[in-house]
């Protein structure tokens, strides 16, 4: 990275504080030292925070946060060799990282006090870290802002605080040699895999909450520092390398898991993410709101279960796996066309209602085909249990295998199988999205009338998107049937407590970022992990979920992973694609006029 000296005018600080930077550094260091001391006297609090000299559990999170704060703070001194850390803003990352440390430490202290019944259970180490975090945060708030308030915003304390957490975009970095850039990408994916694995491996709810706090603040800090933008530039430049790196990182995941339960979470996330990506073709590219998408997953799963050779399957055949996959995909394709052909003549809300209806009809029909109220095809609410494990080329998916010293359990086997399917779906999404067909989909999403006037057969292309989406879901369903041993109608609801359902799928797409490749993957991972890790909020899950969606739509309507287009759509000012030398005045006027 370059050592460009920043020319952005530094804004004023929230309040005058002499030696703010020294204090921040000292605070972060104190918090760091605190993590090496005992935080509580008993190992009743999970993670065993009683050991001196060896941070564990939540202490590690504080430790990492403190190190990050320290690095950013030192970078702010302009120390050579550290300046590459903050190509964007120098002070807002410090503030965010310090807030993250404070959040994690504060949460831990609170959790210990609540769990063990009082603050007396805290050992000095906890206080040391907490005081350090407070000093660092307060001092960091005294650092000057990275950018001035724009003229239109009133300088209220809140606005000034929010502004102090923002930073200008980083300048363009000098190009490094290709191998170095690829190495950076590989490193970034290594870190990402590590962070993700850590999240899946969190053993208790407190650690997971602390993890979420740390990751949220840490990631924002990295964004403000401009590092994420730099990485994104590299990944867009080397897209195939990035894809390969992501695939390798995903492939490595089961080898880090010796715990069957966590490997299963991984496999389920992958299924969920794959289906969400399939839905993204329908919703994100073609703009068709499908509220019954999970039914296609169900069709694929049922089709695969029926021909799986399960002793309880009313159809007593056993297809080889490849044939079962084709059956599942074909069944979903047929259903997609059958549902799509009459309904895709509708637009917008009408389509949503019809697909919502179809989703429910699927579930009810499967329930009814039990031999009593209809022909026996699906065993009704019993579902099809004991689906046998797969055996491909003599590789039995049901038992553990030891490969190069790593033990891969049943879930890990299926995870790797599912990864192949995910890779296929990723490829389909990318290639179709960039082609003539993908452009036509986006055109239909943007303006259907204009698209037809350009010679696009809107109905046919919408049907194509719908059918393709259905087929991809069906593909995932065939694996899902085997992973979960059993298929029952209740797995395929509109909204339920277990993630792959229509509402969660749609949420994963919207939360992650519509029309993007990585968005639904990130969204699905989050939406699966959070309920799986926080069992205690099961009763409030949908409620919290609703709140989270509202907050997201208010503050980041383009989703976590922003499409370049979407970002421009929702934030008028961030005209990223306009080079800085072009005067913006007439462009802005054009936008308002064209909006009529």
């Amino acid at each position, binding site marked *: 990275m370059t050592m460009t000296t920043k020319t952005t005018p530094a804004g004023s600080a929230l309040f005058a504080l002499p030696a703010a930077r020294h204090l921040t550094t000292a605070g972060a260091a104190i918090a760091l030292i605190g993590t090496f001391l005992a935080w509580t006297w008993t190992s009743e609090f999970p993670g065993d925070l009683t050991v001196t000299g060896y941070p564990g559990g939540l202490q590690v999170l504080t430790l990492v946060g403190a190190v990050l704060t320290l690095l950013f703070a030192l970078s702010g001194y302009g120390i050579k060799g550290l300046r590459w850390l903050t190509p964007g803003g120098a002070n807002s990352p410090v503030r965010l990282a310090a807030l993250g440390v404070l959040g994690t430490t504060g949460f831990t202290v609170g959790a210990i006090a609540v769990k063990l019944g009082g603050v007396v259970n805290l050992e000095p180490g906890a206080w040391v870290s907490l005081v350090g975090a407070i000093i660092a945060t307060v001092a960091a708030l005294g650092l000057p802002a990275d950018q001035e308030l724009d003229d239109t915003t009133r300088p209220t304390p809140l606005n000034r605080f929010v502004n102090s957490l923002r930073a200008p975009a980083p300048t363009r970095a000098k190009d490094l040699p290709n191998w170095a850039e690829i190495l950076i990408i590989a490193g970034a994916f290594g870190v990402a895999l590590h962070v993700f694995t850590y999240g899946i491996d969190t053993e208790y709810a407190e650690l997971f909450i602390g993890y979420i706090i740390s990751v949220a603040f840490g990631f924002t800090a990295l964004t403000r520092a401009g590092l994420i933008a730099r990485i994104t530039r590299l990944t867009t430049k080397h897209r195939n390398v990035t894809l390969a790196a992501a695939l390798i990182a995903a492939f490595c995941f089961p080898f880090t898991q010796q715990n069957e339960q966590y490997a299963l979470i991984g496999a389920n996330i992958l299924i969920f993410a794959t289906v969400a990506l399939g839905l993204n073709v329908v919703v994100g590219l073609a703009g068709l709101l499908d509220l019954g998408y999970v039914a296609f997953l169900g069709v694929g799963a049922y089709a695969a279960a029926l021909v799986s050779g399960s002793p309880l399957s009313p159809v007593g055949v056993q297809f080889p796996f490849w044939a079962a996959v084709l059956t599942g995909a074909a069944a979903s394709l047929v259903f997609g066309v059958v549902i799509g052909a009459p309904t895709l003549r509708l637009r917008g809300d009408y389509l949503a209602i019809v697909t919502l209806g179809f989703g429910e009809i699927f579930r009810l029909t499967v329930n009814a085909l039990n031999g009593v109220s209809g022909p026996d095809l699906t065993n009704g609410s019993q579902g099809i249990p004991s689906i046998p494990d797969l055996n491909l080329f003599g590789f039995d998916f049901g038992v553990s295998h030891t490969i190069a010293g790593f033990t891969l359990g049943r879930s890990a086997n299926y995870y790797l199988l599912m990864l192949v399917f995910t890779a296929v779906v990723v490829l389909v999404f990318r290639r179709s999205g*960039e082609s*003539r067909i993908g452009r*036509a989909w986006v055109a239909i999403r943007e*303006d259907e*009338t204009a698209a037809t*006037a350009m010679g696009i057969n809107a109905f046919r292309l919408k049907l194509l998107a719908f059918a393709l989406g259905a087929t991809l879901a069906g593909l995932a369903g065939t694996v899902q049937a085997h992973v979960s041993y059993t298929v029952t109608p209740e797995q395929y609801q509109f909204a339920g407590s277990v993630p792959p359902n229509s509402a969660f799928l749609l949420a994963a797409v919207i939360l992650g970022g519509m029309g993007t490749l990585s968005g639904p993957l990130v969204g699905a991972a989050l939406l699966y992990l959070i309920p799986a890790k926080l069992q205690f909020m099961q009763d409030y899950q949908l409620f919290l979920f609703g709140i989270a969606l509202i907050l997201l739509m208010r503050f980041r309507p383009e989703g976590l992973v922003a499409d370049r287009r979407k970002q*421009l759509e929702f934030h008028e000012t961030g005209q990223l694609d306009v080079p800085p030398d072009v005067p913006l005045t*007439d462009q802005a006027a054009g936008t308002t006029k064209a909006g*009529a």
Partner: protein
Amino acid sequence: MTTTTTTPATTTVLDASGVTMRFGGLTAVRGVDLTVNSGEIVGLIGPNGAGKTTFFNCLTGLYIPTEGKVSYKGTVLPPKPHLVTKAGIARTFQNIRLFSNMTVLENVLVGRHTRTKEGLWSALLRLPGYHKAEDASRERAMELLEFIGLQDKADHLARNLPYGDQRKLEIARALASDPGLLLLDEPTAGMNPQETRVTEELIFAIRDQGIAVLVIEHDMRFIFNLCDRVACLVQGEKLVEGTPGDVQADERVVAAYLGTPFEGAPGAEEVAEVEAAEAHAGTTGTAAPAKDTTPDTTSTDEEGTR
């Protein structure tokens, strides 16, 4: 600026005969005949609500005419917009309808849709012809962007373009489908005189490529400069058709725009009285606009394009 037709051996590109469009009890277009020959620029004028855009929508298949037929180069057009475009008629919209969140280049590439064949399998499997077809499309799209002068803004989002450029981009997008006839619905609405002149040059350049143009416009100076032939629609019926000079001179056209003279036309006495009053009032009364130049946004137009 030439207004004479270029080729003596003209062929009929568009032939609309007896086109009638009724919405329930309202007859928006009544028995309109119109032909456009190759290498010709034909103008369609008329006051607000005269049915110009409705007539356009009948031509492009957005509406199915209640009566009458529209044929393009001898074949009757199917009433489906995408098939009309495929046949060779491209259009722009009165209120700009670009794909605003796509880039300028992508907008033009979408216009290439009917002239390319690469399907989903070709895209997924990257079949041999895929890259070739994609490259050819891009090359053609860049050519068109150069033609309208937007080649440097190929990667900008369409929504970020200035207004005049958005109008131009709409034309480029329409041209991307290699049409034989281009329908322009108020291409200069909201433009300043300089931009209007540039558009005029652009339309002549398009005509010189052998593409016939049918244009709806309110700007009379623009249309009489541009067109070889002008038709005037009034209340859904074609009032008059002819050379710009004929139409301009036609009393009925003037009446349609300005109204018929009051029977008891003001005599010299009243005129003097009014002038005296105006002089007394001071500088307030300036000349009233001679022509109606506001873009027409009647309800039928809105329906037609949505």
